[in-house]
């Protein structure tokens, strides 16, 4: 056999071996189309932004790979773990290419997540953490840090002295209760700060407004507000305007709903400590897609918190 023939044979072998390796390499599985399901906690404008981010990711994948990506957004009508599990399990029955969930309660959602895992459906969690002992990639920001950014800002604006109130959101929602607790921790560090009232708004703007109005009537010396959910600061802002206490009572808000941005623009709220729902939706889909291609994925992506003021919003 000539040297030339031997070289050709060796080359052919190595190309074949490389092709075999490339075929089996992680992240190389392809499909013409993908269907991903997004299951948020509840129908809510904050989760609409998550959905917007998910749709952006679908467009990006289509542009880069040509694969069609369908996003099915399926939200419970109320923040009820039983209803969320029903939606989750019904979605599993449709055999999607992946499911992204914002868990209402990691332990309470565990059985449904185990169902998905046992059927080989890729999972990603956003805005929540996996149940203990379950390895599921998750995306989110530090709720406690988000709350502390807001409460520290309020303390700073009050020069460490004053009467403040906390709106607690839905007391049974883990992220709301964590934020409320972290607000309390920050205020407890300052002897001049007194928490005079706490309200429950159940993530409802109207309830937040009623609660805030009542609390401000009962505490005319109130100096400032923080909230633990996205609806809370919007209701508080409306109550401040109605009571004519704009400039008298300081509001440091939470999240970036359009109404919250309006309150900052109008000077009713000083600022807002916001998580980034669009990024969470975007990376949820990206992680699901990567898992569907067989690629290894990181266990956690931190989308961080943004501190929104009139200046950095360009208002």
């Amino acid at each position: 056999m000539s040297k030339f023939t031997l070289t050709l044979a060796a080359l052919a072998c190595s190309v074949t071996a490389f092709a075999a390796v490339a075929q089996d390499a992680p992240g190389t599985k392809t499909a013409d189309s993908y269907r991903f399901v997004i299951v948020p906690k509840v129908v809510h404008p904050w989760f609409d932004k998550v959905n917007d981010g998910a749709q952006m990711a679908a467009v990006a994948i289509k542009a880069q790979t040509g694969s069609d990506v369908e996003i099915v957004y399926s939200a419970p009508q109320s923040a009820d773990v039983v209803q969320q599990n029903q939606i989750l399990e019904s979605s599993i029955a449709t055999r999607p290419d992946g499911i992204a969930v914002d868990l209402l309660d990691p332990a309470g959602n565990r059985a449904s997540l185990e169902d998905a895992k046992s059927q080989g459906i890729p999972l990603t969690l956003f805005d929540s953490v996996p149940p203990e002992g379950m390895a599921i990639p998750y995306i989110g920001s530090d709720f406690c840090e988000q709350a502390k950014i807001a409460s520290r800002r309020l303390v700073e604006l009050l020069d460490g002295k004053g009467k403040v109130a906390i709106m607690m959101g839905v007391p049974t929602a883990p992220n709301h209760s964590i934020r409320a607790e972290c607000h309390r921790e920050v205020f407890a560090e300052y002897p001049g700060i007194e928490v005079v009232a706490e309200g429950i708004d159940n993530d409802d703007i109207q309830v937040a407004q009623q609660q805030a109005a009542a609390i401000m009537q009962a505490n005319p010396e109130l100096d400032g507000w923080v909230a633990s959910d996205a609806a809370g600061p919007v209701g508080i802002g409306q109550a401040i305007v109605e009571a004519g206490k704009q400039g008298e009572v300081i509001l440091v808000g939470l999240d970036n709903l359009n109404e919250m941005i309006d309150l900052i623009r109008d000077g009713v709220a000083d600022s807002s400590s916001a998580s980034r729902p669009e990024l969470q939706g975007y990376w949820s889909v990206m992680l699901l897609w990567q898992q569907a291609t067989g690629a290894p994925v990181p266990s956690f992506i931190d989308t961080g918190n943004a501190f929104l003021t009139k200046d950095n919003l360009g208002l």
Partner: protein
Amino acid sequence: MSDLQKADAAQSKNPGMLKAVLRNPLMGVLAVLIVIFVASSILSPYFLTPYNMSVVGRGLAFVALVTIGQASLMLLGELDLSLGTIGGLCGIVTGMLMVNAGMNPWLSCLLALCLGAALGFINGFLTTALRLHSLVLTIGTAGIYGGAILVLTRGVAITGIPPEIQFLGRGTVWGIPMPFVIMLVMLLCAVFLTLKTPFGRYMYAIGNNRDAARMLGIRVDRIRVLVFVLAGALSALAGVLLVARLGTAQPSIGNSWVLGPIAAAVIGGVATTGGVGTILGAICGAAIIGIIENIIVLFGVSPYWQGIVSGAIVVIAISFDAISRRWLRKES
């Protein structure tokens, strides 16, 4: 002779039987349930899969248990808006007894059922003793029981439910979810109680005319209180089973058991004024709602449209039922 001819011959021999079956008010809702079931099976390839059937069955079981209790009360002309919070409170208490107090899980479940019965007794006793309308009274007691959940938990779920009782919520018997099996047993008992015993006949008599029933010597108040007790215990059972299913005692358990069971009973032909309808009809109503909720997700209906779609299907279903009943009445 063909099968069709045989059937025709049988019908001509016994024409009253078919009419009696058709005239049964249960037939309308049962027909609607079958139509929705068949349509879902045809329209979605995922609907009839064993996994999806177990999802529908398990989901139905919890709300159906509360529906049995609520429908029984509605047969008497009563309504209990606190059944959801009774289920939630009993779920929380059983979780606290097992996890915080370290009590035997089975004993905890039993005590939770007793608590449910006791809370039902309070509703029944206050309704009968103070001559209050149960609807108004239970708005208040629902607030008290719901408030007690928040006081006990401060909104935080109780985790660490022992695995030995999780079988009640997660296990299966011949592939059928355990909560569904338990619900079926309770349904059979309730159907037997209401249709085959003097107690059941008294319930219908009270629902039709309370004063007339009293004049007939029926111990009206005792029966009313007893049905409240049974409804409370059934709600507690639903709460305990859900704790076993979730593996945690959630403060939000029972939130969706307030209007759902009433709607299910009404769809199933149980009148809110009392004396009309059956428990089986109410469960068919619950199954209709359960299937609609399932297919909405299977079809990927937008969450903003879900209310409209499910509401429209329910309106069509009860209209069909009402029209078929009117037609049958005319026929008879």
